[in-house]
């Protein structure tokens, strides 16, 4: 048990270190600009007052170390400064939208995971038959499509032709639970399709791996029905890689969410990030990047820890390559 604890503690430490280095990159990226960042970003026409307030807001009038420490402690206390574009508190801007993004990601996950795993099981049961090749080709095609293509096809069909669902996903206070769900239906389906494709392929690959094991042949020789073999014998042993894929796909949702929120004009964190990048509103960009990065690191960390817990072979400390 102590060995596992030590490995996990080491992995958590590595995650925190990665996050620390990322925060350095996010904060000091502005130093990449040649010359004075304030005039490079605000342009030639900026007034001296604007330049001075920009420098002060980004703390460019202080030494880098103090600037970084002030920013990092602000971030940890939930106060990452003011927006350059409208002077509002970054925390307020993010607070409104974070919940919306989490809701969209949660709905997409709830749709995609069961369907993806079920399709993977079905493909394994039907391996080598027409259904298997159809789903595997379709999933490859879905993965290679850009999200906005899938999104606009869905809009063209479900909101323009059929008029069933809204093409623009508003999120307003006072919506009932059902209204809120109907609003995010199209963005959530768009995100789900890609995730389903990945999860299906990975579930199938993981199951096929297990299906080659001798105990599966034993079950077949006993005359166990194919469904029971796949679900009762193979699936439990393929769960570890599947959980891993599920978590890594949640990490993919971070990227997908940015595009899908822009397509559906959904007021989430992704749209805020894109808007702020085009306005070069650095305090907001930095805060959004840190949130996305933290979620990404956390998901990867969870995937690693679950893999260690579920696979005894990973519990032994890894020998460094000679």
């Amino acid at each position, binding site marked *: 048990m102590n060995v596992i604890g030590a490995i996990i503690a080491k992995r958590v430490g590595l995650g925190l270190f990665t996050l620390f280095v990322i925060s350095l990159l996010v904060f000091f990226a502005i130093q990449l600009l040649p010359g004075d960042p304030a005039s490079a970003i605000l342009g030639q026409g900026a007034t001296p007052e604007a330049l001075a307030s920009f420098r002060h807001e980004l703390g460019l009038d202080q030494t880098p170390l103090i600037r970084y420490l002030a920013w990092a402690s602000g971030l940890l206390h939930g106060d990452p400064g003011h927006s350059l574009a409208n002077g509002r508190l970054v925390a307020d801007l993010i607070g409104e939208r974070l919940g919306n993004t989490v809701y969209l990601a949660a709905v997409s996950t709830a749709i995609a995971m069961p369907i993806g795993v079920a399709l993977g099981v079905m493909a394994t049961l039907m391996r080598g038959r027409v259904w298997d090749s159809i789903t595997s080709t379709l999933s490859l095609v879905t993965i290679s499509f850009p999200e906005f293509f899938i999104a606009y096809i869905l809009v063209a069909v479900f909101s323009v032709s059929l008029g069933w669902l809204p093409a623009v996903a508003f999120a307003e206070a006072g919506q009932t639970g059902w209204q809120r769900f109907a609003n995010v239906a199209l963005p959530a389906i768009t995100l789900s399709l890609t995730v389903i494709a990945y999860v299906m392929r990975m579930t199938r690959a993981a199951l096929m791996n297990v299906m080659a094991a001798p105990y599966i042949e034993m079950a077949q020789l006993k005359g166990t029905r194919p469904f029971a073999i796949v679900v009762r014998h193979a699936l439990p042993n393929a769960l570890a890689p599947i959980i891993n894929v599920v978590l890594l796909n949640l990490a993919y949702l*971070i990227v997908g969410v940015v*595009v899908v929120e822009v*397509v559906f004009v959904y007021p989430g964190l992704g749209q805020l990030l894109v808007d702020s990048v085009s306005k070069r509103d650095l305090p907001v960009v930095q805060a959004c990047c840190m949130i996305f990065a933290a979620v990404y690191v956390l998901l990867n960390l969870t995937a690693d820890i679950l893999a260690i817990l579920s696979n005894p072979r990973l519990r032994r400390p890894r020998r460094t390559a000679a």
Partner: protein
Amino acid sequence: MTVGRVLRQAPLTAKIGLILIALNLVAVVFAPWIAPYGETQVVGDQWLPGFWDHASMPDGIYALLGTDQLGRDIFSRLVYGARNSILIALGTTALSFTVGVTTGMVAATARGVVDQIMSRIVDILMGFPTLIFALLLLAVLGSSIPVLIGVIALLDATRVFRLSRALGMDLEAQDYVELARLRGERIGWIVLHEILPNATGPLAAEFGLRFCFVFLFIATLSFLGLGIQPPMADWGSMVRENASAISFGILTPLFPAAAIAILTVAVNLVVDWFIRFTGDAHHGR
């Protein structure tokens, strides 16, 4: 086996992929001769219908796929867009490969501290979602084509580094490399003449996959308005510019989006076949 025979024996999906890629390359090379109108030439009103409603097209204009939000011919813009989108993505992939393979080979042959430092840097860069990193750098540097190519190539090179480092480590342990070493060849010579020629298969497949990734990535950034800037014709930006048409039931944004999707699917199909084909060849089947 001759090239012709290999191609004839390829599965249907790979043949379709090859034909689609060839059509795109024709558009890239011969754009000005294929496009009936200029890249930024206004030919009529906003969002005129195309061949499906020929009767309502004004006299003297033939916009095969209709016109865009400024009245420019969509078909011509798609053809020029192929040139811009594909060439920029190819350039970026080439740069990413140059950086990734060089650093990967240095890490694989130098080993020790150099390898440790390079690998840890790559680990950290990969611990950050690519899109988020790219957005951060674009916010700081502003979007222009050189910045776009540089940023994406740098982020993508991390993946190429991982693969070529692994390949290099693997091949470095082969007898013929040992032999070359004992002959007293310099390490650069060994990499160029012994290691790289034996890594061409996996690297070629990876090039196809990286191209897809880079191409989709640039299209996504352009779609978000942070990539290739107007008035240059580019498929991702064309989707963005015409996006509002979809709520009127006008399908214009689907054409450039489909063009992006078709090219990535085509490259994926060919790479899929290539991996299986070279895999089979290795196993002597």
